[in-house]
């Protein structure tokens, strides 16, 4: 395809051509950034979490008398074990993603400082099995450690702790964490095991540094444990959760009993992210549609204006295919100019957002990605008007308009 005649004709229609380029550039810039935001949010919805998310249900009891906890909790656990389908039960102080952060800084020397706040979990006997934690190194807590560890000032009175793999790598890089001493607020514990990464209680609040920073302590039955964690097969979890709420409601009169499947907890935590993703997708689709309409409108106008010229070209031997590819090439040239400007603009917007909002650098492949999307959109939009142009009969050339 000869490009020079196209360029010559575009030079004559400088203003509509500039408008198309401008529209494509703006659409490309907005699209790049919107898709990048969508990508980041979708990635956060899929953060991995090394517990048995599909099989766990959590029932929270609040307002029970803490003085009776030592006898209430074992009784409640025994009753919950009686529910059909339950494979493990334990009491705990909190769960990942429960949006109720209990954070402490952990360091490897008594007087060191850190900016990372780790989520603290106290689990009762059998907690590792009920949650479905995955042990990578070392061992679980033994029965003596569960029975001999208390809760004081939001820290453990015991001597042992489990850490996540991320924390083990962060605190003791290139060393085994097993047997090392973990300090927080001048108290200390020995690391007996390393578990696969478990999410924080509120990872969005903890930020990238604290997202997978979690410490587990054993705890004897204590009034601070409000969560009962039940594990079952995934297909049983709704029934198990319902029955557990009934059982605990009867046993703990006067307390507030609320149940949730862990899958429900997770989707609750990410609900606003999900809605934001849909909003962004909607805006992108509508914006692309508007851009396409603009291209259709302008190209149709050109086709109508040039009916006579098209007729002449057909009369002197151009095929329909020639006319079709003329308009498509023209659109391709305009789109190219548009996406080049658009990519520069997108990069600039990303820099601006990085400066003023919590935004990271956009990976380079978003730029050509959006460029290709807009090229395709342009070709799609121009197809209708170009077909109409190709349908102009040669005889038009002989008529005066």
């Amino acid at each position, binding site marked *: 395809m000869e490009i020079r005649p196209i360029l010559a004709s575009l030079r004559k229609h400088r203003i509509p051509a500039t*408008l198309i380029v401008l529209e494509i550039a703006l659409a490309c810039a907005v699209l790049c950034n919107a898709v990048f935001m969508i990508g980041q949010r979708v990635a956060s919805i899929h953060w991995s979490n090394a517990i048995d998310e599909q099989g766990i249900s959590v029932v929270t009891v609040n307002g029970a008398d803490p003085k009776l906890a030592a006898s209430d909790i074992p009784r409640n656990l025994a009753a919950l074990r009686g529910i059909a389908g339950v494979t493990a039960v334990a009491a705990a102080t909190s769960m990942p993603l429960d949006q109720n952060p209990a954070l402490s800084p952990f360091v490897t020397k008594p007087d060191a400082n850190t900016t990372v706040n780790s989520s603290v979990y106290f689990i009762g006997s059998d907690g590792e099995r009920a949650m479905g934690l995955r042990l990578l190194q070392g061992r679980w807590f033994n029965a003596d450690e569960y029975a001999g560890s208390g809760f004081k000032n939001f820290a453990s009175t015991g001597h042992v702790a489990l850490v996540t793999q991320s924390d083990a790598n962060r605190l003791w890089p290139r060393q085994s964490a097993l047997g090392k001493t973990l300090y927080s607020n001048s108290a200390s514990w020995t690391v007996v095991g390393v578990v696969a990464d478990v999410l924080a209680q509120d990872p969005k609040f903890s930020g990238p540094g604290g997202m997978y920073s979690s410490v587990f302590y054993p705890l004897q039955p204590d009034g601070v444990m409000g969560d009962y964690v039940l594990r079952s097969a995934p297909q049983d979890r709704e029934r198990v959760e319902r029955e557990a709420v009934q059982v605990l409601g009867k046993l703990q009169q006067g307390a507030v009993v609320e149940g949730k499947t862990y899958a429900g907890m997770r989707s609750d935590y990410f609900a606003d992210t999900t809605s934001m993703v849909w909003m962004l997708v909607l805006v992108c689709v509508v914006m692309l549609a508007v851009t396409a309409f603009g291209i259709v409108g302008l190209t149709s106008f050109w086709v109508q204006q040039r009916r006579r010229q098209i007729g002449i070209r057909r009369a002197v031997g151009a095929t329909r295919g020639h006319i079709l590819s003329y308009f498509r090439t023209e659109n391709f040239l305009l789109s190219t100019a548009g996406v080049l400007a658009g990519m520069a603009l997108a990069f600039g917007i990303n820099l601006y957002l990085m400066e003023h909002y919590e935004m990271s650098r956009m990976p380079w492949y978003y730029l050509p990605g959006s460029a290709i999307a807009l090229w395709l959109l342009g070709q799609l939009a121009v197809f209708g008007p170009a077909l109409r142009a190709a349908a102009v009969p040669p005889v038009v050339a002989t008529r005066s308009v």
Partner: protein
Amino acid sequence: MFGYYLDLALRSLKRNKVLTALMVLAIGLGIGASMTMITVLHVMTADPLPDKSVRLFYPQIDPQDMEGYTPGREPMDQFSWIDAMNLLHARKGSHQVATTGGRVTVRPPQGKSRAFFADARYTSSDFFSMFDVPFLYGSGWTADDDDRQARVAVISRTLADKLYGADHAVGQALRLGKDVFRVIGVVDHWDPVPHFYDLTQGSYHKTEDVFLPLETAIALGQGTSGNMNCWGHGGFPDPRNMKNANCVWMQFWVQLDTPTQVQAYREFLVHYSEQQKTLGRFQRPPNTRLHDLMGWLDYNHVVPGSVQLQALLALGFMLVCLVNTVALLLVKFLRRSSELGVRRAMGASKQSIFAQLLTEASLIGIAGGIAGLLLAFGGLWIVRHQPVEYAPYAHLDMAMLGATLVLALCATVLAAMFPAWRACRVQPARVLKIQ
């Protein structure tokens, strides 16, 4: 003349319905999306107490020890019990209030239904008068009730309706956990947006259902909620011994009516910090702040970044729609070169052609504005059904409604300027010759 332009415009718009619809749709979508987001932003940055906000202030002091001390850092944004009480009893402002959030277990009378949680606010007595809380029945408590640790409570209209029927609530017994309180007031619907007096609960938290005297609630060990920051080596405190802990967990507000009072209060805060340092309680040099209400909201970034990003995105989207409108209007006007040429030849001036084309654009603008308004209503309806804490407040008020129409009209007329200018430069002789 305007009537004639209007007639011409309507004829022209009817001639090409598809193009007209496309333009109205493009403007409508752009306006709809951006007005939805701007309305959300407008609601979220609203002044919760327009009559009083300039006189309400939130002080900050720096009670921490020297560990991790960096000069110039912002002080903590809450108060320990001791400092809050010292400031409260100093009575340096016209009113002052120390307050903290809590959660109580409500046990309905006669075991009507299961116990449930309610959000509570533990506060000193000035809260109600200082924040202009409207009472449906009864009233708040007095400073004397505070000191005596009186077992009285003020509840919301919603909770009163649920428990007793709002008309009979005053004088009833309210069981919270193991303790019994006497209801002395019912608060009418009161939902300041943002939840300015305690931002640690979430900036758009709903107003609490139960209000208890601060001293009473803490003495009885009713559960507190919200942020707590501790320092030193004590770790977190025992919930039963919060009064002496090296932790900040309370909010403090003061009403200062004149600039002189404000200046005096600033000096008082510095003086207080120095005095506490002499006593050995504080270690750092005085580091104090005094924000007014709107300044405090700003300092705490109450508008989430994601909402600002959405608003930016919507504006970008509107820009795309506007460029699109410019393009479509250009097409529309240039197509009519011959018609405009005839009008010019018959004696119409450039100005009158320009005015005629702008009239046409205004019609499109108004139609687009109405379409945008409908879309914004739809958009806000969607926002209200999203699981975000500001969702209930996403409503279009009269001001925003007017702003939507004006914005649509202005944007379209602005977009039409260039195409109209181009179209009225048509040379009549040339156009007629081609014909």
